[in-house]
């Protein structure tokens, strides 16, 4: 999203203001879907790297497909031989030996074609699936490796659609389009050659249809690229509006929004219909167009071929072969329109995927990691500067030493930079300048496993994975036994509610933990962190959505978790701050107060004291 825009654009925006859609900066996705059929370098590189391991198999597939097409294309030729060479001996009473031989060859050809075709489909299909698996794996690992900064920007929705709908588009192409494309190409070349060999002049007449064919196909390709994009856009609008209305049905009904919503839905639904109509009609022109070219060619070949039979240049067999070839040739051409969209969406998907795969992780792994076998937990911010956008630092020259074992609370208004401290200490982001160290080692010099064993961050998201409650706790330390999981839950105070669940620790929770209340999810998240047993624990507004009794439960749990380890607590509720040894008040990225809670409250006119008073007053 752009924060600012030139005046011209603003004027355009005002012009469009009547639109319910509202104005938004164009997303990157929209730009990249303009990918042309000709793959860009980036896509070609990705494709190359995916196919390279299959070089030899691909060579074999190429050979097989040549054999298959040769066998297939030989059949009309053999029909010609049968008519021209097989029938005359019989008419002359010389028996059917030649005809039987030719029929035998036809059968062999059919057999070869069958075997080769099945081999081709099976082999190319298997390679396709290998490539897909590799692509899925690469994407998954790549997204896991990319920094949280990337994910913040890119959003989970797009991460998901890259790995699902885009991969599916390529799958679909491999499934239906690839075979047709290869065969259409080979048939085109093979037929042209054979027609010329059979009879040069008649062949040339037949090939005169090619320019028309190419022109029509080219026209269709261009037009359908536009139509296709329009259908994608309009169907996206239908889906977005539909899903939002259904997920937000409570607000829709509470605010009597039904009628207006139906008007809007009618609009997007009709847009989708019109876009589809256009795409349908393109096919509706293209297919009969091909048919027309084919039929005209057949009629012309028939007339010219008939004339050429008179001087013996063309036999009936040759004429028959021509008619079969032309039929075999034009029929599949019509179907190009069927898989053209598949091909197009696959190439757009490939373009997007290759783009995202070239994205570099913002926080890089160190080349020479420093070992840190037993972290104590001293965290230092050393002249740290951080800016999401250049020239607008969120933190400026922060110097901060958190001795091992200390519990530090960070308070301040929204936007003061509290969360940034948490993100830097957990190396979700790297500082723009300066350094963050753990026991004197720059975080950038620690490899991922070492860092994550030492530092764990719990946020208010409290993501619960689909699986059992026990598994969710065990996520903190995958090797942990059941007893350890229970012990962790007990230490946090989560054991009681888990034991009350229908299947205790084996109770399955849905994705995102719909079965658990916010407070219970929080407790599971804490148990998870406790089991992980890090030297440094960071809580980023982890308790904000709890009611007082749940929060009290969590406070008690926190005392257990925080003893004997370094902790950074980001909170906007002051009740969470009470368990801290030290409070840091941030304002516009600067530390304005730093001391024990008691000292700060006692500071006459201090910011924390004022904050605390206002808060205490609100409770009175």
């Amino acid at each position: 999203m752009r924060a600012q825009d030139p005046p011209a654009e603003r004027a355009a925006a005002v012009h469009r203001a009547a639109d319910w859609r509202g104005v938004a900066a164009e997303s990157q996705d929209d730009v990249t879907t303009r990918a042309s059929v000709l793959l860009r370098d980036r896509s070609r590189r990705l494709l190359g790297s995916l196919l390279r391991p299959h070089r030899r198999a691909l060579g074999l597939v190429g050979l097989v497909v040549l054999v298959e097409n040769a066998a297939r294309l030989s059949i009309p030729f053999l029909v010609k031989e049968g008519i021209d060479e097989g029938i005359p001996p019989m008419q002359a009473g010389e028996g059917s030996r030649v005809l039987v031989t030719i029929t035998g060859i036809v059968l062999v050809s059919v057999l070869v074609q069958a075997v080769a075709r099945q081999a081709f489909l099976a082999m190319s299909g298997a390679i396709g699936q290998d490539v897909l698996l590799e692509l899925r794996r690469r994407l998954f690992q790549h997204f896991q490796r990319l920094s949280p900064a990337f994910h913040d920007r890119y959003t989970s929705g797009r991460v998901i659609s890259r790995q699902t709908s885009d991969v599916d588009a390529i799958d679909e192409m491999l499934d239906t389009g690839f075979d047709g494309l290869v065969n259409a190409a080979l048939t085109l070349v093979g037929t042209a050659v054979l027609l010329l060999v059979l009879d040069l002049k008649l062949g040339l007449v037949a090939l005169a249809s090619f320019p028309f064919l190419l022109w029509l196909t080219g026209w269709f390709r261009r037009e359908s690229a536009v139509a296709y994009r329009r259908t994608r856009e309009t169907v996206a609008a239908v889906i977005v509006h539909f899903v939002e209305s259904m997920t937000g049905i409570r607000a829709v009904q509470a605010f009597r929004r039904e009628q207006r919503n139906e008007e809007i839905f009618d609009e997007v639904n009709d847009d989708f219909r019109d876009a589809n109509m256009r795409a349908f009609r393109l096919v509706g022109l293209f297919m009969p167009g091909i048919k027309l070219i084919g039929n005209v060619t057949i009629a012309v070949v028939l007339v010219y071929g008939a004339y050429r039979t008179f001087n013996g240049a063309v036999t009936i067999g040759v004429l028959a072969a021509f008619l079969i070839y032309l039929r075999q040739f034009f029929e599949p051409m019509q179907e190009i329109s069927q898989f053209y969209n598949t091909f197009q969406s696959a190439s757009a998907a490939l373009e997007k995927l290759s783009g995202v795969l070239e994205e570099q992780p913002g926080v890089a792994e160190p080349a020479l990691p420093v070992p840190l076998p037993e972290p104590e937990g001293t965290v230092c911010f050393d002249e740290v500067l951080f800016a999401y956008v250049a020239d607008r630092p969120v933190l400026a020259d922060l110097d901060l030493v958190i001795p091992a074992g200390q519990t530090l609370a960070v308070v301040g208004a929204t936007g003061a930079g509290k969360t940034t401290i948490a993100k830097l200490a957990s190396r979700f982001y790297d500082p723009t300048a300066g350094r963050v160290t753990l026991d004197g080692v720059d975080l950038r010099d620690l490899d991922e496993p070492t860092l994550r064993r030492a530092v764990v961050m719990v946020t208010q998201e409290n993501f619960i994975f689909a699986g059992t409650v026990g598994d969710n706790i065990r996520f903190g330390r995958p090797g942990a036994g059941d007893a350890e999981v229970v012990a962790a839950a007990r230490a946090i105070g989560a054991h009681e509610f888990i034991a009350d669940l229908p299947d205790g620790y084996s109770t399955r929770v849905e994705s995102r933990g719909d079965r658990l209340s916010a407070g219970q999810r929080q407790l599971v998240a804490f148990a998870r962190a406790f089991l992980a047993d890090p030297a440094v624990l960071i809580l980023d507004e982890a308790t904000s959505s709890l009611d007082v009794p749940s929060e009290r439960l969590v406070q008690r749990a926190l005392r257990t978790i925080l003893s004997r380890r370094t902790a950074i607590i980001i909170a906007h509720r002051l009740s969470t701050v009470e368990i801290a040894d030290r409070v840091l008040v941030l304002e516009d990225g600067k530390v304005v107060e730093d001391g024990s809670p008691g000292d700060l409250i006692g500071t006459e006119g201090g910011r924390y004291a004022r904050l605390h008073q206002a808060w205490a007053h609100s409770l009175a």
Partner: protein
Amino acid sequence: MPPATVTAAHPAVDDPGRRRSGSSLWRLRGYLRPYVGTLVLMGSTATAGVFVALAIPLTIREIIDGPITAGDSSGIWPLGLLALGLGVVEALLILIRRWVQARAVLGVETAIRRDLYAKLDQLPMAFHAHWQSGQLLSRVTTDLSTIRRFSGFGMLFLVINIVQMIVTVALLLRLYWPLGLVVAIAVVPVVWLSRSFERRYVVVSRKVQDQQGDVASQVEESALGIRVIRSFGRQQLAYDTFDADARRLYRSSVGKVRLAARFWTFLEVIPNLALALVLLLGAVAVGQGDLTPGTLVAFITLLLSLVWPVAALGVILSMMQEAMTASDRVVEIFDTVPTIVGGDRELTDPRGRLRFEGVGFHFPDEHNPDAGADTLHDIDLDVSPGETLAVVGATGSGKTTLTALVPRLLDVTAGRVTIDGVDVRDLTLPSLRRVVATAFEEPTLFSMSARENLTLGRPDASEADVCEALEVAQATFVHELPWGLDTRIGEQGMSLSGGQRQRLALARAVLSRPRILVLDDTLSALDVHTEALVETALRAVLSDATGIVVAHRASTVLLADKVALLQAGTITAVGTHSELLATVPAYYELLAGDADSAVDAAAEPASDLAEAGTQR
């Protein structure tokens, strides 16, 4: 609206798969009615196309057996022109059919989709609680295009292909019956085999689809949980789980490819085998003088034209089956009876006196292990016009459910809720929901302009009204968005923080100027400072309207004139904040924790608080 045919009435969620296959598809026929003329035109052009296509090989035969055999060049032109004419007509017929077809099938699809959407908009919360939006989405997209494909394409060709097969085979029999017989006999097993292949293929495809779904869930989890995964450094674990599913999908997909390879090969090889047989027998017949060369060529051409209709029949039959299943799923929604329908009374000039009289509620959900347990019971409350009531209770005590009963997002299962003495169920829904507006804890923002989102409940609001509401909700940040009120927000637009979203939802509720304003823990994501500002502004709004405020924090409770304590589904105490603090220990427990800690924290360092906390 066509669903005049759709009248049967039973709740959809209760009986999956009871319907007999095919009847649902038949019930959707009403949607074809506006296009009867088009359908007739499609059918007649397609039929004519079949005959024209058959005439072309016969013309070829005439040319070969006539002018070519006789060496008569003058006979070529008329027949050649005939072939050309027939070819042009065939193309034209296809053009006409496809052109009119687009309008009809897309019209049907669009109409069903519109009616489905309108229906879903009316269905109550209880229905939507059961159905994930993804399931509903697949009905309005995938299922509808399945129905469209069948009604526009499959249905037509089911008939046309059968006609073409019968006519062609009859023609072949007439041209030379022994060969015709060979072809006729070959057709039956091909249709049968392609059907059985297709069936197996559908099974395998479903399996692959399911596994694609599994992989997609893994992807979704890892994307949504990325921060937790990173935070604990569990990338490998996540990858291993994902990879197990990805490999399972791979194995099934390869199986599917193999099956498809056999299927497609079979479809291509059969006609070639028939060709070889026809060539052998035909050439023998020509040699013996039983058949002319022209007839043999025509025969071969006709045989090739038979390949597609025969092969496609299996596909079309599966298409029909899929369309039946799809229409079952669509009709299921049409059949769902809306359980919340408005009465016929209007409230003119409402005062806003709200009463709960012996209200009880339980979710009608048999999947719920606690089925039968009342979420709410025996609730009696009386809120005078202009008064504000705070509802306080622990998580899960039923506060949100209680507030949902007023605008009838849920309906009481016992007792009644009245506004100015009128049962809310007697009011028309628009009239009721004009009186009541709710700001939800988890605000729903739509991917539309900020203005459209704000004026949800009052489309005619003036600029000044909007600005005033933004003031009250401390949501003036909207003016600083790149395009101000016209900036698109929500999923597809500018992303906003939780606090910003809540403030917008609050502004939305305030803007609709309700007599009764419900605030369902609307301020939970605000920081202390902003919360205080919002509360000050809200006081003015609440002085005019009747208010229900769900609160977790003492500061919010102070907005109210009186407080009701909700425990285990019923109201256990009503009074002012200070009365309840003094006399009800459970209330003190719920709300005073904060205040006490604050007082203690002021006096003592944190460590002592641990004990203070545990002693309570």
